[in-house]
């Protein structure tokens, strides 16, 4: 009977998946309901989880539930605690899901929803979830050690150092691009700036409350903080309407940049309980709540997708970011399909708390499927906007101008219907002066979310509230990431520099830590500033660099996985990681190559530098530069970006070299050569046996 139910169930899943895909495929000319995308995605996830992840767990890795995990071996009730798999799933998911899966798909929507959707589904099943799962498995079998340590022990000391060096640069680019998203969302928006600024005193209050007034009451203080946040959104409207207050909170992009840089420095040297921890409570819980709310909204409302399945911009001429579908789609959507950063999380706290090895499948593979689902939601939110509005919000001012009339005219020429009134009306609905060229993805997601959520609660009258709620929600966890990331980057840097200058390694030394913090902040601050003044919107430059660095790390993690499979003598199953690692490396290297050498100045950094250099020779000043010195600065930035892209290529190629060397060595030896911790019987199993 059970057998029959299970068979019927799978028949149902495959039938509904197939019909959802049929609806999507057959209605290419007209708009479809978002629910079909959701059904198709969920069916793919369920099937992949049931069959592919089970295959990896049982046939490839041969997960062993009798094996003792680090949680039991090093149990201390603190870092190492055997934890129920559902409880740990929540922890792991909250750690991997951030702004990435929300922004990438929105930028990718310029090619239509179909390319993004297909890559999100195929990428997560065969690459992203596989990477997370196998790295978690590898780390769990090796006392929960970190990615850098794992590479050092399995591939060698030098590749381990190279990988950590690469990871530090990802950190810088990531922080810069995240901060850029906040700047783009808050520039010239007093309402948004006020609410985000209000989170600082709210967090300080919460920090003192939970430390001195009511210690340990996280739930209680978060609830109070949440109420205060909602009040600050409401108050933001009054700030906007009051001319003097509005003037104080109306900041230009450059002012916000300096504010963020100062904030990043101060916040990361304050005691953690005061600002970082309480803000983390708010942002984590708000993130989970909002994701659930968005999912419910999309399913209940099933908004129509107005974006076509494919747009003409698959050829690479799009205004949001430049470059053709291959390879740039595959680096624009990183998180949600495959994200190298996850390998740091999967070799961080999670493997130290896993109860039995078999849980790695649910936590590693399952949580990544969940993140992909979040990315699908973001894609849906972007695709439900009127395409004309989407392009008005995401195209740089250099292309569509700064007025509603010029924007509508340019966008109409691309074949998307939009009027100046539609643009100003949308801005009015969400309580902004202007929505033109609000690049970076966050405002677009906020408008999409506001449309969906206001249909569930509040109608058009509540749209402005929901819009600022969405902006606040994104800004909140980005600021937490900037704070925590600067700290983590500082320690990474002290560790790296400490190998050469021993004095830098001392994390208790005030001078050493201030120097390291300063270098970190200056590093991401430089890229942030460069992005803010860029007339093409900055996202055009920084997001591809971020995508390339993130996929480079994914390549490194998958190279490690492949080496471990060969060292376990699982040669015939190694295709499980060889296929994704090949794809990731091909995309990343091609994209980096094109970013450096492409002849089109919108794509290639060197071509862009040459264009400016020729103008300098002729004495003509090109925007955004206002003088020849600034022209020189633009040229210098181009060279920095080109060097960074070449650095990422060099890191990946050298890791490929070390990886192939390790594989060849492992092939010659006819017994397993992995460096696993020795097998010990799990206490759970030992007691149930008795």
């Amino acid at each position: 009977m059970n057998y029959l139910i299970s068979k019927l169930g799978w028949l149902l899943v495959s039938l509904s998946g197939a019909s959802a895909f049929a609806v999507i495929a057959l209605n290419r000319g007209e708009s479809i309901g978002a629910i079909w995308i959701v059904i198709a995605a969920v069916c793919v996830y369920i099937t992949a989880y049931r069959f592919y992840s089970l295959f990896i767990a049982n046939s490839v890795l041969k997960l062993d539930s009798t094996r003792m995990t680090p949680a039991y071996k090093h149990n201390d009730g603190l870092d190492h605690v055997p934890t129920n798999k559902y409880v740990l799933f929540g922890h792991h998911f909250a750690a991997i899901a951030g702004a990435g899966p929300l922004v990438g798909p929105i930028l990718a929507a310029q090619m239509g929803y179909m390319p993004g959707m297909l890559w999100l589904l195929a990428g997560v099943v065969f690459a992203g979830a596989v990477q997370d799962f196998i790295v978690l498995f590898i780390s769990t079998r090796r006392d929960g050690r970190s990615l850098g340590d794992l590479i050092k022990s399995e591939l060698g000391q030098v590749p381990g150092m190279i990988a950590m060096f690469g990871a530090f640069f990802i950190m810088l680019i990531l922080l810069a691009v995240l901060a850029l998203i906040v700047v783009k969302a808050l520039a010239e928006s007093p309402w948004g700036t006020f609410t985000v600024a209000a989170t600082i005193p709210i967090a300080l209050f919460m920090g003192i409350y939970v430390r001195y007034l009511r210690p340990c009451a996280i739930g209680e203080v978060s609830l109070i903080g949440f109420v205060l946040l909602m009040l600050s959104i409401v108050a933001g409207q009054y700030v906007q309407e009051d001319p003097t207050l509005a003037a104080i909170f109306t900041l230009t992009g450059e002012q916000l940049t300096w504010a963020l840089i100062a904030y990043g420095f101060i916040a990361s040297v304050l005691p953690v309980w005061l600002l970082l921890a309480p803000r983390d409570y708010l942002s984590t819980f708000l993130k989970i709540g909002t994701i659930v709310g968005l999912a419910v909204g999309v399913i209940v409302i099933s908004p129509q997708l107005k974006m076509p399945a494919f747009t003409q911009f698959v050829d690479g001429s799009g205004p949001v970011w430049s470059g053709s579908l291959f390879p740039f789609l595959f680096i624009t959507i990183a998180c949600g399909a495959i994200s190298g950063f996850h390998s740091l999380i999967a070799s961080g706290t999670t493997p130290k708390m896993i109860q039995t090895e078999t849980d790695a499948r649910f936590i590693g593979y399952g949580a990544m499927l969940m993140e992909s689902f979040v990315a699908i939601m973001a894609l849906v939110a972007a695709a439900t906007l009127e395409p004309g509005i989407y392009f008005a919000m995401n195209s740089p001012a250099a292309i569509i101008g700064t007025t509603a009339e010029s924007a509508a005219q340019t966008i109409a020429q691309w074949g998307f219907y939009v009027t100046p009134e539609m643009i100003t009306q949308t801005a009015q609905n969400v309580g902004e002066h202007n929505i033109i060229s609000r690049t970076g993805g966050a405002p677009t997601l906020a408008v999409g979310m506001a449309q969906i959520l206001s249909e569930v609660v509040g109608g058009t009258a509540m749209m402005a509230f929901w819009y600022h709620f969405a902006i606040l929600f994104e800004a909140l966890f980005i600021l937490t990431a900037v704070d925590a990331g600067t700290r983590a980057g500082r320690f990474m840097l002290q560790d790296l520099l400490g190998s050469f200058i021993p004095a830098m390694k001392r994390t208790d030394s005030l001078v050493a830590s201030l120097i390291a913090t300063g270098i970190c902040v200056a590093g991401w601050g430089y890229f942030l500033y460069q992005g803010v003044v860029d007339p093409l919107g900055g996202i055009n430059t920084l997001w591809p660099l971020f995508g390339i660095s993130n996929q480079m790390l994914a390549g490194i993690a998958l190279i490690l996985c492949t080496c471990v499979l060969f060292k376990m003598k699982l040669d015939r199953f190694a295709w499980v990681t060889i296929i994704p690692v090949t794809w990731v490396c091909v995309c990343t290297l091609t994209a980096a190559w094109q970013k450096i050498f492409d002849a089109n100045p919108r794509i290639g950094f060197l071509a862009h530098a040459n264009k400016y250099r020729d103008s300098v020779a002729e004495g003509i000043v090109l925007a955004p530069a206002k003088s020849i010195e600034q022209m020189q600065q633009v040229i210098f930035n181009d060279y920095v970006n080109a060097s960074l892209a070449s650095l990422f290529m060099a890191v990946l190629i050298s890791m490929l070299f070390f990886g192939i060397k390790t594989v060849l060595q492992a092939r010659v030896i006819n017994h397993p050569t992995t460096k696993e911790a020795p097998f010990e019987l799990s206490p759970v199993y030992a007691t149930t046996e008795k």
Partner: protein
Amino acid sequence: MVNKITQTLRQLSQSMRLMVGVPEYSTYVAHMRNAHPDRPVMSHEEFFRERQEARYGGNGKISRCC
């Protein structure tokens, strides 16, 4: 049924706390009693502070993703 609901709710709140880096205090106390009866046990407040410092305080641990 009621048991099942309370258990789910308890797990949910455990998971929420773990998301911000605070594992179960009772598990910690039980572990210390069983495994190290000779060692002092941190009070709930000390435990909370120790966990905060461990999550955010450093050693280059990356606790979140992009």
